[in-house]
């Protein structure tokens, strides 16, 4: 009974919000055809991961310049509104609310990290706005989205388990014993949890698993331990800043293990840091959603436009706006003319867009399956070894 009453309240609220958004769309511009389509970008503009927000911002602005130079979508320009989520879940909720309610965006691209995405998901049905996650790798998001109960949550990137399915098979062809060294956070622990059973199933023995906080100054204690256990390989789940220290202490100890990374050793920051002694990371491998070399067209334009190096997060933000949302807007415009939150959601479920990272098509869980890239460091350069297609999980 309460449920139905609540439902009615919700319906009433929805009607108000819908009315408001219609007013918003018609109100200021007068000529409705020319009013801008607003896209919300919730990202990390400050804090530890401000670099990510910077890449997102530049890439999205570039994508919009391109879209608008081509006359916009259905004659309307596309605009972006940025909101800082500081990489903190509660802030991600506030940012999503602000984008949906104050700025009246028609869709949100989210770069909050897995915890942030999981925090935002429950309020999406109330806000009635699409949240497109682009780099959140927690497997739970798949389970909860689309037919999992949340029709507003979409994800364009592969998650830890999908990556682990492919990458552990790849690792198993190269080593029989491995040590796992990972951040003690959602990224590191989430990844380790995904690899543990998958490596074991393929006969790779995990001889040690160590978790540590970001910014650990000295890896030698850990490395000395791994050296003594003497596995054939190391699975390293850290970001560039820590990999920079790691690789030097690894070299100092004269270790020879094959390093498999799930982080960003393919990033320009890491690659730049080893240029004085490129041999120290020779042969290190990584499974990644994107790396320089995947899409040289985007890279070159990015470098020309911003005179800085493109990074994975920015690239994903670029594809999210330039290809995926643009296609959804076009689809919505072609079908009924109206580009609003509901039609964008429906269109996202329908479209099939070719992008530089593979064809994006959302399944019943609102999950897309772009390519997975296996890269290797050779002579201080990132070389793309393989581009793998990933199939939907058997869950």
């Amino acid at each position, binding site marked *: 009974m309460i449920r139905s009453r609540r439902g009615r*309240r919700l319906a009433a609220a929805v009607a108000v919000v819908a009315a408001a958004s219609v007013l918003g769309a018609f109100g200021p511009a007068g000529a409705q055809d020319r009013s801008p389509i607003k896209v919300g970008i919730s990202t990390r503009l400050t804090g530890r991961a401000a670099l990510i927000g910077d890449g997102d911002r530049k890439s999205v602005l570039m994508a919009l310049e391109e879209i608008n130079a081509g006359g916009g979508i259905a004659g309307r320009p596309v605009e972006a509104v940025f909101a800082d989520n500081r990489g903190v879940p509660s802030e991600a909720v506030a940012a999503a609310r602000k984008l949906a309610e104050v700025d009246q965006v028609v869709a949100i691209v989210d770069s909050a990290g897995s915890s942030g995405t999981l925090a935002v998901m429950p309020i999406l049905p109330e806000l009635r706005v699409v949240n497109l996650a682009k780099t959140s790798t927690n497997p739970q998001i798949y389970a909860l989205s689309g037919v999992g109960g949340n029709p507003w949550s979409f994800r364009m990137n592969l998650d830890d388990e999908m990556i682990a399915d492919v990458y552990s098979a790849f690792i198993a062809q190269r080593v029989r014993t491995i040590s796992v060294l990972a951040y003690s956070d959602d990224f590191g622990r989430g990844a380790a949890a995904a690899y543990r059973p998958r490596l074991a199933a393929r006969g790779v023995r995990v001889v040690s698993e160590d978790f540590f906080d970001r910014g650990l100054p000295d890896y030698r204690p850990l490395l000395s331990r791994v050296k003594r256990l003497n596995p054939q390989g190391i699975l390293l789940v850290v970001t560039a800043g820590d990999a920079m220290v790691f690789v030097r202490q690894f070299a100092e100890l004269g270790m020879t293990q094959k390093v498999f990374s799930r982080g960003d050793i393919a990033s320009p920051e890491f690659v730049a840091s080893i240029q004085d002694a490129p041999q120290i990371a020779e042969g290190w491998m990584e499974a990644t959603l994107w790396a320089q070399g995947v899409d040289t067209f985007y890279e070159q334009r990015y470098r020309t436009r911003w005179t800085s190096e493109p990074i994975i997060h920015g690239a994903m933000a670029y594809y999210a706006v330039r290809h995926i949302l643009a296609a959804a807007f076009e689809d919505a415009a072609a079908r009924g003319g109206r580009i609003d939150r509901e039609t964008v959601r429906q269109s996202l479920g329908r479209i099939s867009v070719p992008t530089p990272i593979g064809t994006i098509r959302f399944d019943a869980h609102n999950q897309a399956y772009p390519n997975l890239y296996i890269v290797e460091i050779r002579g201080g350069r990132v070389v793309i070894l393989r581009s793998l297609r990933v199939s939907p999980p058997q869950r």
Partner: protein
Amino acid sequence: MTARPVSAGRPDAARRAGSPRAAVAAALLAAGLLAPVVLGTPYLRHILTIGMLNAALALSFDLLAGHLGYVSLAHPAFFGVGAYTAALLNTRWGLPVGPTFLAALGGGALLALATSAPFFRLSELSFAIGTLGLSLVVQAVANNWVELTGGPMCVTGVGYPAPGFLARLGPPQVGAYYVAFALAVAVAALYAALTTGRVGRVLAAVQGDEVLASAFGVNPLRYKVVGFAVSAAVAAAAGAFYAHYTTVICPDDLSPLLTLNLLVMVFVGGLGSLRGVLVGTALFTTLTEAARFAEAVSQLVYGLVLLAVVLFAPDGLEAILRRWARGRGQTP
């Protein structure tokens, strides 16, 4: 610079507790009650909800810092214990939302009582450092005891704080707002009760001259311990609300950043003053939201504002407000 900047104002504030102050309180109460009806966008309601949460936290922090002289940097620890207690009881054992608050309250108070004996043997400086250590340890436990807390994967799917009758008021966010509002009002009332009248005078005595206080038969330690426990219990209740409201609680939410925010709210507003702390909280909450629009330098601005206030207006905005009020002849 005096150690206790605003204490001089308190007796006089107590005397005035009668008419204008009661009117202001009533007006604030009415405004708070009507806010969700008046405010059109849920976003503003959300900011107001966070503001209420901040007020409860800042007042509980100031209860100890402004009235007993102990700057406890362990607030994130109590906030975290409350948040995790509520979140885990709710998600793992299905405890309904109301009782989770009580459990959180108890958890916070217990941790404070357990740590108070050693902490209050220390000097005020060592107390600050020791409590900082406690907050870092609790955060580390939340981060690393994965079996219990889920570690960095967070506790998700925590029940929304819109109990029973509140659910009938409209969307659940309205109910949540009223829970936060009730929390803030209760804490403000508690704060007023503890800092004025007889208890207030005893606290002032304990802070001013412990030896003298004991000479008059007051056990300073007891007041300090109770003050610490009350402060911790409130922080824990705020934590519980936060976990329910955002439906997720992560170790990152327990970072020392929370302490920094509290310092800004309390010191900018005015240490030891209800009005000052509330003004500081309102300002902080608004500015934090405003900063979401034009970011990049917000941390720098926090730092500069905090520095400027402590250096040039050590008594905070409260002192300025008071001077202004006196200028207009409101105070006898």
